């Protein structure tokens, strides 16, 4: 690319070392592009793509005692290579009620929590987008700050809040209200997801809302629309990319959530991330855990595609 037309005026002396390095590399057929791409491409292939292939491979093995605790897919016996694939893990996923119930309940919990997060996050994002300039950065910082503090510690903070003798119940006690049972219920899991993922909802919503032209609202009001009407037919449709991006940013990780159901949920709170964890750590059934992971990937693939589309729309506008 650059070697094709050399500058007619020789470059100043101090530029020479870099140019010389590049010319020498170009001579052996290495271009700048290759140098930029090679490290991230290799790293992501080896540590992101290949691992997913390995998970798929091991999901077709069976549990075995020994190290590693799964059967080999390929075996050589008297000069012939044998490929043994077990479908038993996948068959179990569909026939054992535990897995089906866990998938459905994960999707349900993630979906409900996402809707609640949207209902709380939208007005907050809107308020920040419409706030005076000097307030906006401070409010945004207040949204981002909890995101930087430890996720685990924020979930822990909630346990102190919702415990039987926790802050909320002590507060209710002042009014003579009986303590509520909040911990180890699905309710606590909803609160946990909404609480920890709220910033992920607010940021993309804010990004779309802040770019909306205020002239549109004025035009709508001039034409006689009430604020509610303006919101429903102007603001809401225009902020759709932000709504989709924010919702997917909450929904996708919430499906596979492990920390929240195990610290806040009860024994009856079925979530697939927890099932995978138990399958791996408690039952040491690695192939079964791999099959659970593959099925989870299938569940999140469509939301991930939705997210990518919405995100490019959020950035472009």
């Amino acid at each position, binding site marked *: 690319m650059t070697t094709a037309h050399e*500058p007619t*005026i020789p*470059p*100043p002396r101090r*530029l020479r070392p*870099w*140019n010389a390095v590049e010319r020498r590399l170009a001579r052996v057929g290495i271009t700048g*592009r290759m140098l*930029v*791409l090679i*490290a*991230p491409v290799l*790293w*992501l292939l080896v*540590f*992101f793509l290949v691992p*997913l292939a390995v*998970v798929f491979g*091991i999901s077709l093995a069976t549990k075995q005692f020994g190290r590693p605790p799964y059967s080999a897919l390929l075996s050589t016996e008297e000069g012939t290579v044998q490929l043994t694939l077990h479908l038993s893990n996948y068959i179990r996923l569909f026939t054992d009620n535990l897995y089906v119930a866990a998938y459905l309940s994960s999707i349900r919990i993630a979906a409900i929590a996402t809707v609640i997060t949207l209902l*709380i*996050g939208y*007005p*907050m994002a809107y*308020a920040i987008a419409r706030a005076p300039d000097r307030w906006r*950065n401070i*409010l945004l*910082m*207040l949204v981002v700050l*909890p995101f*930087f*503090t*430890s*996720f*685990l*510690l924020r979930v822990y*903070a909630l*346990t*102190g*809040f919702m*415990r039987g003798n*926790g*802050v909320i119940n002590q507060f209710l006690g002042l009014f003579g209200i009986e303590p509520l049972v909040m911990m180890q219920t699905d309710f606590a899991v909803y609160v946990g997801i909404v*609480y920890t993922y*709220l910033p992920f909802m607010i940021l993309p919503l804010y990004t779309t809302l802040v770019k909306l032209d205020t002239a549109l609202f004025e035009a709508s009001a001039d034409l006689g629309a009430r*604020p509610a009407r303006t919101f429903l037919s102007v603001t809401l449709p225009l902020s759709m990319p932000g709504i989709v991006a924010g919702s*997917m940013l909450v929904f*996708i*990780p919430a499906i596979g959530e*492990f*920390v929240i159901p195990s*610290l806040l949920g009860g024994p009856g709170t079925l979530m697939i*991330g927890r099932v*995978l964890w138990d399958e791996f750590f408690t039952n040491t059934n690695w192939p079964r*855990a*791999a099959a659970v*992971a593959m099925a*989870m990937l299938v569940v*999140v693939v469509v939301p*991930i595609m939705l997210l*990518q589309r919405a995100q490019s729309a959020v950035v472009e506008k």
Partner: protein
Amino acid sequence: MRRGWFLPIAASLGFAFLYAPIVSLVIFSFNESKLVTVWSGFSTKWYGELFSDPQLLGAAWLSLQIAAISASIALVLGTLAAVALVRFRRFKGRTLFSGMVSAPLVMPDVITGLALLLLFVAMESTLGWPQGRGMLTIVIAHATFCTAYVCVVVQSRLSDFDRSLEEAAMDLGASPLRTFFDITLPIIAPALVSGWLLGFTLSLDDLVIASFVSGPGSSTLPMVIFSKVKLGVSPDVNALATIIIAIVALGVLAATILQLRARPKRARG
């Protein structure tokens, strides 16, 4: 107009929801009683206990090292990936590449953790590397997902700066490499700093992936905290949380002030 009072109230309630649990956690870290929720007097004894717990201190040191190393690896890889995605409009496998870069952002932790562990086990039995699991495998895992975050941050900075500066340098005879180090790098430096810090905090915070890929004797801070919390209330965790929150709050505050200070200067120049 109805919006007049609805938005401020909704926003204040939202912020109260975000901050109330954190505030109560900080307050109760100074509580004398072992019962985390019953106030019995001011005390800093849990902070003292924290600094005399060798297991916790060891885990904290390990976590800080892992976070620094993996954020640095991610900084290099993520910046290169961002340069490729913003500057090279077309190349073979671009879609696959951009997918691989951004997928770790939303991939559920349990899948990432399991996948990397199975990879490490398979590699060990076929290639003999990495031997066992510990700090090295956690660093690799964290660097991988932090790369995605660094890339997003650097990408947005790269795509909204004036390219004519780079073109001018090239016209004056600077090679692409030299242009990158002399022109591009100083301009995107703030994004590099925030990308590194983001990677550092995310690595420091990760429980799930580290639990999968760590080995015996290499428990990170979140793993120790999680096992403590699972066993029940422990006021020293409150104290630890308060320290971490204070450090993070100061860091974010400093970054925001720096940004606000830098703005008028940029407008003038």
